[in-house]
Structures are given as structure tokens and as C-alpha cells.
């Protein structure tokens, strides 16, 4: 009898895909991924509690609460949750455990997932793809595409990890995850340092100053200031570095956000172009 309430490998994989597809298409401000989570769990609820209306009702309510995490990290949580409820299907006592695990993990997991899958991957692959795209080369975007497909495939592994290891994964994983996040941020920092020099284009103009008319030849004489040459003699990519530091500092201020910063940069460029400072 208990055997009939075990999930087969095929069922588990389809639940995994169910989460990947449903997790966010019904995203809304009230429960965020809550509706997607509930929808993912419907076959689980039917199978485990379908013959006990009261438990089924409790399960439906338990899983319709607020939920939000990074979707790939969500695979681990869903896997864990299914394992917990499967083991305690007899009494349904796993529902309360699952509810608290979901709530406890979604925040920290979102932090890790957003850093690794969002920021670092986006920065590294995004900068390579954008640099190449600006040269009319689509190879960079192909590399990024491979990464995205690899992440999708890896999500089945994350789900299995969550299901097989269950709750004990949380303690063993947290140390490794922190190490991984730290390592990923090192990669991110190195790439950002390079990108500032390579991709912030701050081409300074050569200013001409009239020295008046040469009395002997009758031609106007100029004193030329090659601003870019002066800047380069201090340090190559000096202005990109200073400008990046300035923008970094501004973004830390309460009166600034990324949308305003874009506007500031565009206006700044138009003004500099107007005065002929940029070449």
C-alpha cells in the first residue's frame, strides 16, 4: 500500500519539468511564485492525499502561500519537498515540515542563485557576447546560448540532488555554496575590471587653440592639445576607470538609481559632444 505512494523516476522527472515550466508564468505581486509552486505540486497532492479529502484540502492550502526564489535553486527545494511529503504521506505530517523548509530556504537560496546564475553568469557571458556583437560577430552569443542550455540540463541534477538528499543537503550544501559564490564573485570582479578598460569608450578630442596670425607667413598658428595623449601618458583607460568609479559611487547614493544613471550618462555624453571634448 505504501509502495503505491512512491514516485517513479519518470514521475519525478515530469514534476521537475512541471516546476521549470510553471514556476513563474503565473507570477503575481501577491504570492509571486506561490501559484506556480501550487500548480507544480498538484499531481503530488493528488497522489499522496487524493483519497483523504481533509488532508488534500490542507495540502492545497499549505502550498498556495507566498513563495519566491531563484527558479533553478527552486528545483532543489521542490525535490526536497516531494521527498519529505512522500516519506510522511501516511500521516500527512510532512506538510508542516515542507511548509517551514520552503519558507526557510527561499531567501538564502535566492541570494545564492541570483549571484551565480544571474549576476556573475550574466556579466561574464554578457560582456563577451556584447563585445563580440559590437564587432558584428555572433560567436559570443553562441557561447552564451550554450551556457543557458547547460543550465537547463543541470536543473534536472539539482532537482535530483534535492530529492535524494532531502533535508540533510541543507547543512552539507551551505558551506560549498558559499565557497562557490565567493569564487564566482572573483571571476566577476576580474571580468568587470577588464571590461571597464575595454568597453567604456571615452575618446578625448584634440583641442586647437589659436595663437593668432603668423606675421611672416600670414597663416593662423595653432597650439594643439591632444587630450587623449595626455591622459594615456598617465594611465591607459584613465577616464573609463575614473568614470566607472564615479558611477559606482553615485549608485551607492540614495538619490541615484540605475534608470537615473542611464539618463545622466546620456545627457553627459551629449554635453561633452556639444563642447567637442569627445572625439
Amino acid at each position, binding site marked *: 500500500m505504501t509502495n503505491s505512494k512512491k514516485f517513479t523516476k519518470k514521475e519525478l522527472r515530469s514534476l521537475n519539468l512541471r516546476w521549470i515550466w510553471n514556476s513563474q508564468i*503565473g507570477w503575481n505581486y501577491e504570492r509571486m511564485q506561490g*501559484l506556480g509552486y501550487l500548480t507544480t505540486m498538484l499531481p503530488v497532492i493528488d497522489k499522496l492525499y487524493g483519497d483523504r479529502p481533509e488532508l488534500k484540502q490542507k495540502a492545497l492550502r499549505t502550498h498556495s502561500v507566498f513563495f519566491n526564489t531563484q527558479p533553478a535553486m527552486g528545483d532543489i527545494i521542490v525535490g526536497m519537498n516531494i521527498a519529505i511529503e512522500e516519506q510522511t504521506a501516511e500521516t500527512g505530517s510532512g506538510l508542516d515540515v515542507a511548509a517551514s523548509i520552503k519558507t526557510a530556504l527561499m531567501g538564502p537560496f535566492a541570494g545564492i542563485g541570483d549571484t551565480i546564475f544571474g549576476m556573475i553568469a550574466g556579466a561574464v557571458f554578457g560582456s563577451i557576447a556584447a563585445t563580440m*556583437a559590437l564587432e558584428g560577430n555572433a560567436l559570443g*552569443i553562441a557561447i552564451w546560448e550554450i551556457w543557458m542550455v547547460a543550465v537547463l540540463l543541470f536543473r534536472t541534477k539539482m532537482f535530483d540532488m534535492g530529492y535524494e538528499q532531502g533535508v540533510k543537503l541543507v547543512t552539507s550544501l551551505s558551506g*560549498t555554496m558559499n565557497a562557490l559564490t565567493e569564487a564566482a564573485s572573483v571571476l566577476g570582479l*576580474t571580468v568587470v575590471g577588464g571590461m571597464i578598460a575595454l568597453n567604456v569608450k571615452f575618446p578625448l578630442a584634440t583641442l586647437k587653440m589659436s595663437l593668432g596670425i603668423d606675421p611672416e607667413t600670414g597663416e593662423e598658428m595653432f597650439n594643439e592639445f591632444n587630450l587623449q595623449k595626455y591622459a594615456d601618458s598617465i594611465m591607459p583607460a584613465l577616464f573609463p576607470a575614473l568614470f566607472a568609479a564615479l558611477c559606482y559611487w553615485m549608485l551607492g547614493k540614495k538619490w541615484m538609481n540605475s*534608470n537615473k544613471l542611464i539618463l545622466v550618462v546620456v545627457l*553627459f555624453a*551629449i554635453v561633452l559632444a*556639444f563642447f567637442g571634448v569627445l572625439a
Partner: protein
Amino acid sequence: MSGGLSIIQILLITAWAFWSIVDSLSWNIGFNNCILACLFTGVVVGDMKYGLIVGGTLQMTQLGAGTYGGASIPNITSSGMIATALGAASGADPIAMASSIGIALAALFTQLDILARFSNTAFQHIADKYVEEDNTKGIALMNTLGIIPWGLSRGLPVLLLLVAGQGVVDNLIKIIPAFIMNGFKFAGGLLPVVGFAILMRYLPVLKKPQFIILGFVLAAYINMPILGIALIGTAAALITYQNATAKLAAGAAQGGDDDYDE
């Protein structure tokens, strides 16, 4: 102007835009990727390189940015597709096109993202009723219906602007003074700084400045291409990872000893 886009071109680009957000919410295999979407648009309108440059310029403003915690960010994918389709036909400079119309529309479209997230609250409320009625099919349907507001928030503006926008863009390009268009071109070169500044805010810049210096020197002084810098960064990341896990193992052993002593 060059007769505008054909119905088939408009429908293809609109369909991609509709699906872009749905893909990014689920399988995430690239439809919502700004460069890929612009490349696709470029191919559809017959100027692949134009799409790549518009996409690359816009992508630079949002490296590593994401909708973390349900935040709405400028939609450079939809705006980039529009800038590519209309810009390629008008003959405007792709970098200036991206940093003017591309940036402006992306910011405007943020509101549509918020509207979609808000609209889905209605489906949530119906789903809540179905929970009480044990109607599991209804619950799943409400979740799936979320696709409609999501998709329309991208597909609709792209459709409307592709149908009606060509004349506006052509006229804008004629009216705007050369020095402003020139300024937008420079802005295209400067704007990547925004992407980097956002990213740096999330990274331990002040705790580990050595790595940002390393990357900068490799690029500025040695002119190493970005792929090489990324590989050196990967090497540095591996060292960091090994040190961190070694410390972890040592810490665990240490902790075990302490327990034993007590």
C-alpha cells in the same frame, strides 16, 4: 522611407517578443536575450550586423542585471527589437539608435512589466477560490493564463510600434540636430559604464579590489581580449574555491576535535 516592414516580418518579430518573456520565466533558453532577439530581428529585416550592434550596445547597459526578487528592470529586449527593425530601414547609426530610442523605450516598457505582474493577481484570486473547491484543473489553468498578460506586455508594444513607428522614427532622425545624434553615439560608448557600476554594487569590490585591478591591467596595459581575461578570472576563481573548501574541511576537522575534547 523604404516602404516599411511586411506583415510577415512584423508578425515574426511580434511572436518572438511575445514568447521572449514566457521563455525567460520558464526554460530560459535565450528568447529574452537582448543580443539574440536583436540578431533574430536583424536577420528578419535583412541586416544581421545592425541587430548585433544594437543588441550589443543595449546589453552593455545591463550586464548581470536581473529581475531579482521580482523587481522590474528596463526591457532592452523589446526595445532593442524595435530599434533594430525601425533603425535598419531608416538607415540611422545603430549605436545612436540603441542609445536613444532603444534606451528610452526600454525605460518606458518597465511600466508594462509592472502591469503584467499586477494583472496576474486577478488569476491568483480565482485560483484561491478553486483551492477551496478542490478544483485542481482550475488552479493549473489560472497559472497558465498568466502567459497572456506576460506575453502581451512584450508583444503588444512591439506590434504597435512596428506598424506605426517607421514614419515617426524617420521624421525624428530628420528633425534631431546632428550634434545630439552625435551625442547619442558617444552615449553608446559610455553607457556600458552603467552596467559595470550596477554589477560592482553587487560584487565585493572593496573587499577584493585586487581582482578588479588584475582584470583592468590585463586589458588596459596588455590589451588582452575579454575571453583571455575571463579565463584568467576562472583560474583565480578556482584558486579561491579550493582555498575556501580547504578552509571548510580544516574547520570541520577542527570543530570535530573541539567536540571530542569537551
